[in-house]
């Protein structure tokens, strides 16, 4: 695959498209199972915290006076209601699942704020100091739980949770439907030498043996990288998986699954690629700034593949033949134009 598509060699998983749980991807059964269970319990804990946030928030808004009495502090309804809104916000963020880790982290920040506020009430002049101390201790416990959960969720979303081991690198998953029969789509992809026709950054693929191939790609900034890869699994019309072999410029692995689409709509393709980008994650972030985000590249390459299968060639606009952003107008001179601009035409 292209440089950006390179992934680590040790992880090849393809049994569950929807899985975002790194624990599942690892070959040995025990770790896989543990990883799954671990992340489920983290999410359950997060949900409990989410509902707790909403409950507490509603309480703060509805009955600030009662709450003030309970924890032995001065009743400031306005402040309590604001805190209540914050709690509800955290709860919704956690439960809506859009970004549970962020939601729990916002709880941690809220805890810090609450602890600061409570500490102002711990002075000996507070007649209800005992209640406040109890509330502070309880809050410290909740804070610890929040910290624990948010750290675990963040690790999961970065793909570095403990059961998965020390795994680095990025992962991209994309899907597309191609309006051609599965056999045809599989065959075309299976001939790796076809891949540079639609993969923007791939220069060449040379087949060295039944399982081995040599790949050359041009990365961001024109950097040339080469590596050998081996086909790990190859099931006709179903699946191809691969990984790079040690000694190359990049580490990459991935899989591609083919499935007939319902309603005779051709073939559904799901592709997942992992790679350690040159320059590490920082390099990938920098590349993203220059419009080279890996998910974009994979999405664009898949669309180009669809072009090739359905209309016989990659379609270009006046802007898209250029690697860099270009206005929608013909290029100033021939050398600007892309690789495709070489047709013999009739007329003029």
């Amino acid at each position, binding site marked *: 695959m292209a440089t950006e598509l390179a992934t680590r060699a040790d992880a090849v998983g393809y049994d569950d498209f929807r899985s975002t749980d790194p624990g599942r991807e690892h070959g040995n059964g025990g770790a896989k199972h543990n990883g799954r269970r671990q992340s489920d319990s983290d999410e359950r804990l997060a949900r409990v915290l989410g509902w707790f946030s909403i409950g507490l928030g509603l309480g703060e808004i509805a009955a600030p006076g009662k709450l003030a009495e309970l924890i032995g502090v001065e009743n400031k309804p306005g402040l309590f209601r604001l805190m209540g809104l914050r709690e509800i916000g955290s709860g919704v963020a956690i439960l809506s699942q859009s970004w549970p880790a962020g939601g729990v982290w916002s709880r941690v920040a809220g805890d810090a704020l609450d602890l600061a506020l409570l500490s102002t009430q711990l002075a000996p002049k507070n007649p209800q100091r005992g209640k406040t101390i109890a509330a502070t201790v309880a809050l410290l416990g909740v804070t610890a739980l929040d910290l624990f959960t948010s750290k675990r969720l963040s690790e999961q979303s970065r793909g570095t949770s403990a059961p998965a081991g020390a795994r680095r690198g990025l992962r991209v998953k994309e899907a597309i439907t191609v309006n051609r029969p599965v056999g045809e789509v599989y065959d075309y992809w299976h001939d790796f030498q076809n891949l540079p026709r639609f993969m923007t950054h791939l220069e060449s693929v040379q087949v060295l043996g039944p399982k081995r191939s040599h790949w050359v790609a041009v990365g961001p900034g024109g950097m040339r990288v080469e590596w050998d890869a081996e086909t790990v699994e190859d099931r006709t019309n179903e699946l191809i998986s691969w990984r790079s072999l040690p000694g190359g410029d990049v580490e990459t692995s991935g899989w591609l699954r083919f499935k007939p689409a319902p309603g005779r709509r051709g073939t559904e393709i799901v592709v997942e690629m992992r790679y350690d980008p040159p320059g590490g994650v920082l390099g990938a972030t920098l590349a993203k700034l220059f419009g080279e985000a890996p998910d974009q590249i994979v999405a664009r390459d898949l669309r180009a593949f669809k072009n090739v299968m359905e209309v016989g060639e990659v379609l270009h606009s006046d802007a898209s033949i250029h690697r860099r952003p270009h206005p929608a*107008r013909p290029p100033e001179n021939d050398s600007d134009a892309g690789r495709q601009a070489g047709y013999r035409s009739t007329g*003029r």
Partner: protein
Amino acid sequence: MKANCWEGKKKVRVEQVPDPKILNSRDAIVRITSTAICGSDLHLYNGFIPTMEKGDILGHEFMGEVVETGPGLKNHLRIGDRVVVPFPISCGTCYSCQRGLFSVCENTNPNAWLAEKMFGHATAGIFGYSHLTGGYAGGQAEFARVPFADVGPIKVPEELSDEQVLFLSDIFPTGYMGAEMCDIEPGAVIAVWGSGPVGQFAIASAKLLGAERVIAIDRFDYRLRMAVEKAGATDAINYEQVSVLEALKELTGGRGPDACIDAVGMEAHGHPAIYAYDRTKQALMLETDRPIALREAIMACRNGGTVSVIGVYGGFIDKFPMGSLMNRSITIKTGQCHVQRYMRPLLERVQRGEIDPSFVITHTLRLDEAPQGYDMFLHKEDECVKVVLKP
């Protein structure tokens, strides 16, 4: 060649640019004889459509003569053919094209990944209409490259003038599709928001499809006059003088129109207070589009009726009357026009003399005068409805 280029908000300039080249095997190069400024070009001009780049060639309504063909075109088109080019670029073979959904072709938008981020799924490529729709050079130029020239462009007979067939490229089919989506039955009453060029064709098409009454709604009397005198509207409402909802109740015995067509889109005007509300939210980026006409069309529509949206929207709207829509069993239909579907049947209607689309043209300028054309069209100066440019 000369081409009209977008240089920034409210700034277009006719520049000298390189001639287009064949980039794909089924491309044709067309020497443009007539091109037009579309109402939706004003959304680009006003800076409401994202992903424009300085130097983009504008224009998606054009026609001309084939001067060069790619090797994949075989005998579909020959040098010298006179063609009208539809604004969506469509491959003709994907799932969508096979179902006649040409404006959501799956193979013609090289920036599909970008469109997916914006819209969830990608749309087809469009000439001269931002990079979200592929970054294709437009047709307000002397020449244009036309991909899939064996799918989109249709040959037009010599006896019809450019002015009579040019609008098959967009606004006539767009207005027609707007009327078709209304499922017009005998006795139908159709209300059309906006009497710009697309609104005029929506009105004319509603009549062609058998509507008994067609009500035009706009704020410019000269446009309402054209709607009644040329397009065939039976009634006209100037929303700056009367309340549209009240007037429509009066005109329809309290029922509301059977179908309402929004031929206005994202830059609607309306009651000063509502306009100010939406314009402010738009300026603060709290909503991208001003749905004033759309809201009114929904509220006005009779129970169980249809709201047909052909005015262009770009992003997100606010205060959408979902309750009215849901509780009153209203159907919304919409889409960028699948022009390829309508070009031939509408050409036949023109040939039979059922309609002469040239009635909307108020100004014909040289391509060099494109900047004045945009300015005049935007400010509705000199009773401007439609500007045709001659390269």
